């Protein structure tokens, strides 16, 4: 592997004096041993799956494969199945709506709360810490809880709506509202992450900037637009791109709330990938779906890496 190949060269370069070769070769081996387990793990549990998925997506890989060991090559057939499945474009649209809606809601509310908690007042640190709770709960727990809250007949939300004179909403049972309900829950889950990161970014903006602006008469909204937002931009980029990459792959929340229904109203590419592989046992089709997901994530990941390059180079 690369580690063992380059390590001796590095140590040789660092100690050009005449020492026994075996000494720094051993040094190189010891150094490489620190990285070897992690490198091996990442190769086996990230590298292999990505390659395997790519290969599988060109094979007829089904339950039969597990008995016969045969997975015939089918070329682009799985991708054709995916695109022609009738659920592909709706799932793409749902993925886009789910992602954009979730990110917009999480970000706006997260930023508002971060700005709010930037003020020092009694208990602010404690309250901000407790705000993290929804982020730390297992997603399936949140899904189950919200499913009881959103229940059409007995959920507390509809009970509340009824008490203020509004009709019951079939939150998870109607194809027209289910996606909105799922987005609302995902916004709730994502707020703590946004608050935490944006709050960290706000802390790094020097107080003098605000003081100088206040002298020029810029306070409140003005200082928010002209100082907070521009200075926060690198952090905002990170939050948005990470948010998109995380939201694209969401499965737990949707499976727990609606299972992709009703009438496929909450099907996303990630859910399609899961269901093709593990419900229909068509692993080739599932792999094709997930490769499309990787491709979309990759586009955003490149944005992230470009924005983050300075940090990594540091």
């Amino acid at each position, binding site marked *: 592997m690369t580690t063992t190949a380059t390590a001796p060269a590095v140590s040789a370069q660092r100690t050009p004096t005449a020492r026994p070769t075996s000494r720094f070769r051993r040094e190189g081996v010891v150094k490489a041993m620190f990285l070897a*387990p992690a490198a091996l793990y990442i190769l086996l549990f990230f590298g292999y799956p990505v390659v395997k998925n790519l290969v599988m997506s060109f094979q007829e890989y089904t339950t039969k494969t597990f008995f016969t060991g045969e997975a015939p090559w089918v070329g682009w057939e799985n991708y054709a199945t995916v695109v022609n499945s009738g659920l592909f474009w709706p799932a793409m649209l749902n993925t886009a709506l789910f992602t954009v809606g979730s990110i917009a809601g999480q970000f706006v509310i997260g930023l508002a709360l971060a700005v*709010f908690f930037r003020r020092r007042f009694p208990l602010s640190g404690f309250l901000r810490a407790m705000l993290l709770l929804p982020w730390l709960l297992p997603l399936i727990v949140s899904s189950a809880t919200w499913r009881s809250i959103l229940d059409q007949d007995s959920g507390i939300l509809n009970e509340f709506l009824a008490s203020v004179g509004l009709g019951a909403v079939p939150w998870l049972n109607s194809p027209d509202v289910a996606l909105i309900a799922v987005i609302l829950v995902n916004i709730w889950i994502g707020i703590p992450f946004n608050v935490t990161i944006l709050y960290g970014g706000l802390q790094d903006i020097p107080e003098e900037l605000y003081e100088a602006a206040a002298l020029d008469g810029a306070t409140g909204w003005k200082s928010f637009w002209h100082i907070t937002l521009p200075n926060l931009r690198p952090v905002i980029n990170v939050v948005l791109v990470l948010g998109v990459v995380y939201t694209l792959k969401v499965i737990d929340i949707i499976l727990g709330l609606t299972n992709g229904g009703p009438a496929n109203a909450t099907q996303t590419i990630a859910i399609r990938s*899961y269901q093709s592989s593990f419900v229909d046992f068509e692993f080739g089709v599932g792999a094709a779906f997930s490769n499309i997901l990787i491709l979309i994530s990759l586009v955003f990941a490149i944005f992230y890496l470009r924005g983050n390059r300075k940090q*990594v180079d540091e």
Partner: protein
Amino acid sequence: MTTMAIVTDGAAKRRATRRSGRDILFTALGVAFLAIMLFPVYWMFNASLQPSGNTLTASLLPLNPSFAGYEKAFADQGPNLVTSLVISVGTVVFSLAIAAPAAYALAQFRYRWINVALLAVLIAQMIPGVVIANALYAAYNDLGMLNSIPGLILADATHAIPFSIMILRAFMMSVPPSIIEAARVDGAGHVRAFWSIVLPVAKNSLITAGLFAFLFSWSDFLFALTLTTTDDITPVTLGIYQYLGTQVANWSAVMATAVLSSIPAIVLLVIAQRYIAAGATGGAVK
């Protein structure tokens, strides 16, 4: 002189009163925001204590708490909670054993390709879990590792290892190379210096990474769902999902299980608050 002093004193006092008034307003607003955000968590507790097991009759306060939901939850899900605990502790140990040495190497050794390695770790975190599940299912099936605790530990570590490497590296960058050099001059090898100098210094970051490894693994649902085919190994997240299919008429049992599954997150947030905060912000730097 004296009048001046009195004037400034009065102004300061006025400012102080105004501040305490605003303080109270802001604290009240903060409490209100928190109450809205945490209402679902409260509702989970409340619903878990409802007697009929039905949210239809749920009152806003559990005035007549019933523990029937917890009895059923313990009877059905008790073993699953133990399974989750075993898997999560295993993931913590395995992840730290892999990530800590790698983080040390990436922080303290000089490699020319270090940016490539960091990039690989970064990208690894972005790969959708379903991609990993898809490939691991096939591989585990061949290796006989489906329905096994080691199989789930290895898979769950995909959440924890890249995250831990990043968190631990960020910390180990701040360990002064001079103390490592000093140990090396005294004749300690890399392994010795790492074990008896760096790890003790990095204790807090190890706790942070370990806590998150635990939470990630405890929360895992996708691998539990895909890499098990029988009921032999059922982490509690999968237990909740199965409940959602069969027990939605008995919400108090479902919610009691949800409460029990939330305990690690709640305990860690209250007791280990500063580690969680460190991890949450560290997670963004990754």
